[in-house]
């Protein structure tokens, strides 16, 4: 029982990181109809900046985080302006392929700065843990959960209640008519990419917190794909539930599979999110919460 609850808790902390990436993916898809496969690169870049300012420039972690937020937002806007804007009106498939190329280019750039070694992120949590009764959790995992709740909650409130959030939902539904209400579609696109890049950056920070960051962080962030497939490409709430499902299934698998089903080998837990994704694609291709008419690539 203790082991089970511990596995659940670990699953939730995985989910926090996946949710940050997945919600960014959903925001961009909803407001610009772009499937952004460049999220892993944005995540690496974001983490790189935190590392750079916190460990090379030796600023405080919090100041570094703030600088990285600004730089990530700016990167998001620049990427949208230079790479995506010329693609407006092109088939969704071509644009998606383009973002894969973009991901490669940005990743090369990020890895150039990051180097080949594991780099500490300079976070204050390190390997410290918190214990409640028999359960133990790394402090950085608790921080990840809290941050994800706060950030995703803020994003949801922003969309529901703010004037710009209203405009973004309108543009997501019908760009042309949103334009005729005076909504600047250019700012909607820019803001979507900025938000998404910042969320990815935070995911990068928490992947790197405690253990440090290297190129494998990009692989971890790819699990946002099964998350959005499970939750639906166009639903933030869906992305959260998808993240919980994928995070918990993965964590349970890594806890129990090695002893119960050793034949499946080591590292099977990393494959499980994709298995869940395939099964879901077969039975409910628009995700658990997505809208039926959203097409798949």
């Amino acid at each position: 029982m203790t082991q089970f609850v511990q596995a659940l808790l670990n699953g939730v902390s995985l989910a926090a990181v996946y949710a940050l990436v997945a919600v960014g993916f959903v925001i961009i898809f909803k407001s610009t109809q772009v499937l952004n496969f460049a999220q892993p690169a944005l995540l690496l870049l974001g983490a790189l900046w935190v590392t750079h300012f916190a460990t090379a420039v030796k600023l405080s972690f919090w100041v570094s985080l703030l600088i990285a937020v600004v730089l990530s937002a700016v990167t998001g806007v620049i990427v949208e302006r230079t790479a995506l804007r010329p693609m407006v009106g092109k088939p969704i498939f071509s644009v998606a392929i383009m973002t894969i190329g973009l991901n490669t280019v940005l990743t090369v750039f990020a890895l150039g700065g990051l180097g080949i070694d594991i780099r500490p992120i300079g976070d204050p949590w390190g390997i410290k843990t918190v214990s409640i009764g028999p359960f133990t959790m790394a402090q950085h995992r608790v921080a990840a959960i809290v941050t994800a709740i706060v950030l995703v909650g803020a994003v949801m409130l922003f969309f529901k209640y703010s004037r710009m959030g209203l405009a973004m939902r309108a543009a997501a539904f019908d760009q042309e008519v949103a334009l005729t209400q005076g909504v600047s579609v250019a700012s909607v696109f820019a803001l979507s990419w900025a938000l998404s890049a910042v969320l990815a950056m935070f995911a990068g920070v928490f992947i790197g917190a405690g253990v440090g960051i290297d190129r494998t962080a990009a692989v971890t962030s790819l699990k946002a794909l099964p998350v959005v497939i499970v939750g639906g490409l166009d639903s933030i709430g869906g992305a959260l539930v998808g993240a919980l499902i994928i995070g918990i299934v993965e964590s349970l698998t890594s806890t129990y599979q090695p002893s119960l089903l050793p034949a499946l080998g080591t590292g099977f837990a990393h494959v499980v999110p994709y298995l869940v994704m395939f099964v879901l694609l077969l039975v409910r291709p628009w995700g658990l919460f997505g809208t039926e008419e959203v097409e798949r690539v």
Partner: protein
Amino acid sequence: MSDERTPLLEFRNVNTYYGPVHVLKDVSLKIYPGEIVCLLGGNASGKSTTLKTILGMVIPASGQVLIDGHDVTKWTTSQRVEHGISMVPENRRLFKRMTVRENLEIGAYLRKDKENLEADMEQIFEMFPRVKERLNQKAGTLSGGEQQMVAVGRALMSRPKLLLMDEPSMGLAPILVAQSFEIIKQIHEAGTSVFVVEQNANMALSIADRGYVLQTGQLVLADTAANLLANPQMRQAYLGEVQ
């Protein structure tokens, strides 16, 4: 028509293309403050394109668009909305997943005087009591007639000087069509100029001061509504086929 007044809206030899397709051909027209003007024409004659050109959603290859005597040809859509143009689009096109209230709020997106919004909404409820009852419902769940009311309400929330209406009778039952035109008259009486695009020529001419007739992108007739109703060419081409 007194020609000394500055038109609220003017087209001077406007040519609009979609790629290689020449849609509006040398169109010149004027709408004066206080008028209801209709634009008649068959399918694909360029009526919606005319409205999109007014709002700057398509930019003419040549010619000028003027609002209040200012050349606005290079202005963005939001600048034109800020200058008092708003539109009820063809097929209403509500934001169906948002509530009725949110649809009205987005209509007021560029308004700076947020303190007056509630009062303006009240005026819309007076015109359309049904809208008030449906305020927190998703717009997509409304009937066609109710959606029409919300679409008109949304357009009015920007306090336009000129309201553009793209085929308000489309897809509505005859009784609702009559109501729709009643509403246009009311809006006009409250001081808003109206430019209404229609295929239902009889109905449109019955409320309009003047009308233009568009045929494959060219204006072929421009006259007072009364003259157009009496025009034999009109009767044959547009009025006979409509009930």
